[in-house]
């Protein structure tokens, strides 16, 4: 048994534990303890990985454990993590931990809520520890489905419709994905050897280019739907707007990254030739996402819509970085995954907290809240700064790395795309400051808002956890960047094969 299986076992045990609780109090304590343990494990994993990598300067996949599951189809339960996966696991652990605290006051069917939430997290953790395409798909879909219930039952607004749209679009994406993964499977034997779902094994061979041309777009779009790839992003604004706080956090924070991670780890990694060949098309799409999302956010009134469009823009940047296919840009993209995960989770947590107080998410109905709820206000401003890429927070580091990496391409197409994408930093500033200006600053718009109370202790735990993580990356990014770059080395060897 690998240490990594704990990452699935702990949430499962937590779910079982929750089943034996009676009310909200017990439920949330069990959840908090479970996710706390998970966070400790994740931190340990990250530290352990870094110390291993530091000692040997070898960036290997650690904690590998391979057990056969379906021998006849050569399906294995194969787990193992490298630096990238460890970082993603850490991100997930942080966000779910914060999410549990952000849901401290879920009065309606609390047990069911926490169970669904943690099942969702289980799927995500499972996805990141897996190295077998079949188990990855399995966990991927586990992560998608609880979302329907979470939004449908505990959401707000047109929740049924949003939940349905979200679920169906994501499942349609996974439909493409299934075909893509099967395509990989049936092309995975080099010289008549056994077929395999093993990611590492497949990466050692070159998939025939004709097969790549078919299966790369399937896989990339399949994951891209979850990664809010333009034009398959429309589930995101509605879904996020309707979802309860913790779900928005987890979804925008982690699940969308899962899509991007899949695009990278499966589509680009295993089929670099086709990725290179078709990257122009997807670069256009992602560059459009970036700008389009940013402009789309400017005129929105609903806080969650603003953030959802902003996520479209930021996640577009991730995919954009990945498609640049050099280690710097991919390094940046992965840091952006983590950075945006933390930042957007913080945003959604804060929006939920503000909404819980004012009962509106329309920015025009708020004003001068900074004076009334200073803690949340300051947090919101900091999150905003992080979002617009202010140095000192993780977003800056990630974005700059993507830009620098993207600029290594010296042809006009990549240049223009990059510069267009870079210009998003201005637009981002515009919409972030617009919201901050209207909502937090200025005179108090509604008398009844004067009675609002500032953050409670659990809300502080939730937000501070996220903020500290962001600053930890933003102030001293080298630990993360080096870990990722190290882990990228073997991957880049494969990806850059298209050059030869």
């Amino acid at each position, binding site marked *: 048994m690998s240490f990594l299986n704990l990452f699935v076992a702990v949430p499962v045990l937590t779910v079982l534990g929750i089943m034996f609780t009676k009310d909200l109090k017990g439920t949330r304590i069990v959840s908090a303890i479970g996710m706390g343990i998970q966070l400790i494990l994740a931190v340990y994993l990250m530290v352990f990985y870094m110390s291993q990598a530091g000692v040997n300067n070898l960036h290997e996949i650690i904690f590998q454990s391979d057990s056969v*599951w379906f021998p006849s189809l050569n399906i294995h339960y194969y787990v193992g993590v490298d630096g990238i996966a460890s970082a993603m696991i850490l991100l997930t652990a942080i966000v779910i931990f914060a999410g549990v605290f952000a849901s401290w006051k879920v009065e309606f069917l609390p047990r069911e809520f926490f169970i669904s939430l943690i099942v969702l997290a289980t799927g995500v953790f499972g996805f990141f520890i897996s190295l077998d395409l079949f188990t990855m*798909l399995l966990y991927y879909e586990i992560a998608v489905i609880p979302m329907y219930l979470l939004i449908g039952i505990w959401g707000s607004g047109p929740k049924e419709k949003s939940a349905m749209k979200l679920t169906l679009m994501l*499942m349609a994406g996974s439909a*493409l994905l*299934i*075909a893509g993964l099967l395509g990989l499977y049936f092309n995975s034997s080099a010289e008549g050897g056994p077929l395999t779902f093993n990611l590492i094994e497949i990466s050692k061979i070159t998939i025939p280019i004709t097969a790549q041309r078919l299966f790369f777009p399937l896989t990339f779009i399949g994951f891209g739907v979850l990664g809010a790839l333009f034009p398959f992003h429309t589930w995101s604004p509605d879904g996020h707007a309707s979802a309860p706080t913790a779900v928005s956090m987890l979804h925008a924070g982690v699940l969308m990254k899962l899509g991007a991670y899949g695009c990278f780890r499966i589509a680009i990694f295993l089929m670099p030739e086709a990725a290179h060949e078709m990257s122009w098309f997807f670069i256009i799409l992602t560059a459009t996402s970036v700008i389009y999302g940013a402009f789309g956010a400017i005129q929105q009134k609903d806080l969650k819509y603003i953030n959802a469009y902003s996520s479209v823009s930021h996640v577009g940047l991730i995919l954009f970085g990945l498609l640049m296919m050099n280690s710097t840009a991919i390094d940046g993209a992965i840091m952006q995954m983590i950075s945006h995960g933390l930042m957007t989770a913080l945003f959604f947590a804060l929006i939920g907290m503000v909404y819980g107080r004012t009962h509106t998410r329309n920015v025009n109905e708020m004003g001068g809240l900074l004076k009334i709820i200073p803690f949340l206000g300051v947090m919101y401003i900091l999150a905003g700064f992080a979002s617009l890429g202010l140095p000192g927070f993780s977003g800056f580091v990630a974005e700059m790395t993507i830009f620098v990496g993207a600029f290594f391409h010296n042809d006009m197409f990549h240049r223009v795309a990059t510069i267009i994408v870079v210009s998003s930093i201005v637009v981002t500033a515009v919409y972030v400051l617009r919201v901050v200006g209207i909502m937090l600053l200025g005179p108090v718009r509604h008398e009844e808002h004067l009675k609002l109370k500032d953050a409670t202790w659990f809300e502080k735990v939730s937000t501070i956890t996220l903020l500290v993580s962001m600053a930890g990356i933003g102030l001293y990014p080298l630990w993360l960047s080096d870990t990722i770059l190290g882990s990228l080395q073997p991957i880049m060897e494969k990806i850059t094969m298209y050059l030869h």
Partner: protein
Amino acid sequence: MDFQYILLLKHEILLTLAALIILFVELFLPQNKKRNVINISLIIFAIVAFAGFIPTAQGNLFGGSFQGSRLTDVMKDILNLAVLIVFLQSTGYLKKSENADKMGEYFALIIFTLIGMDFMISAGDFITFFIGLETASIPVAGLAAYDRYKRKSAEAGVKLILLASISSGVLLFGLSMIYGATGSIYFADIAKNITASPLIILGFIFFVSGMGFKLSLVPFHLWTADVYEGSPMNITAYLSVVSKGAAAFIFTIVLFTVFKNITDLWELVMYALAVITITVGNLFALRQDNIKRFLAFSSIAQVGFVLLGIMGTGALGMTSVVYFMLVYVFTNLAAFGVAQAIYNQTGVETISGYKGLYKTNPKLSLVMMLALFSLAGIPPLAGFFGKFFLFTSAASHGYFILVVIAALNATISLYYYLLVVKAMFIDKNDKPIAFFKSSGLMRVSLFITALGIFVVGFASGIFEYIMSISSSIF
């Protein structure tokens, strides 16, 4: 002929005995103790079902007319298991006063159809096959009309018997063509002589139509929804799982053995049928409110997925089909079980009537949700594994586009399954179904099915076992 070869017929013999015993027991029970026939039948059938698992020899009987192998044993065991669950779920229905005079027949008729199916599965020539087929289908018409006093039930019976007859007519016509072209009714001989001549194609398509009727492939499916709706719900469950399962098994076997030489041809036909079946099934399921019609169309779509598995041919194709049917037994019977539990207590059989069910009957709602998610192919439930292997099978022959179409259709199916989930979990209702406790046997059956939904996927041993025995044959 060695005596031990008679053991090849163990399923058939045991079932015949069981049916006869049940009939006689009912005959000789005193009037006030007639109700005991239910429990007695259950015990007898449970014994028969478990005895079926005892491994016996393999080989041919009656000059190749009857073929027994571990694979056919597994198929028969799956059907037995399904029937056992159906029986467990039927008790509530049978205990109703209007059924007091026909409890033994219920068991006997079902067991007779099961015997027919077993013969059909083991058939080595088309006569055995035909006899089995008719034995399996004629009593079903009686069962469909079991609620004699209900107009819908009577209508279902008539529709089923007439349409089943014309479909057997067409099927037989096809068989006569094949006989004319190949000169034999033995599977093995036909397989040797078959070519893609027009006569054979005509015969083959007529055969496919007849089987398509049993499997409810579009466009031979139109009876399905009406008969499902009219029949008593336990019969609907039986029809949708057992009849269909048996038909899928024999269809797969015949395609893989008899029509092996024209695989390219029939894969083409299956391709078209799969696409249209899944799509039409889904489109019709979208707007159903009656849970039986809903599950009818959903089962049509599910069979379309089975065709994907068949298209893989060989051991993988066979395994994926058998495995999927096993999963389908648990999944669909879980859904029907919940629907029956509700119907028997409250008479509600519409999805809109399920609104707010989770508030009052959380466990039933959960089982229903599991079943629906499993039908939609959501991991970690068994349905995901079943569907994935079907897709794998189709993909192994390079039908990736078909996989995409099917998987996108699975998304549509998720939509209507979610509508039911939404009704139970999300929609508000002023007067939801009140809390009730279902009978103990029903709860046992729901527990078994729920367990099956969880375990069958993860337990790779089951899949591997089926794989190993099908690899030894194909």
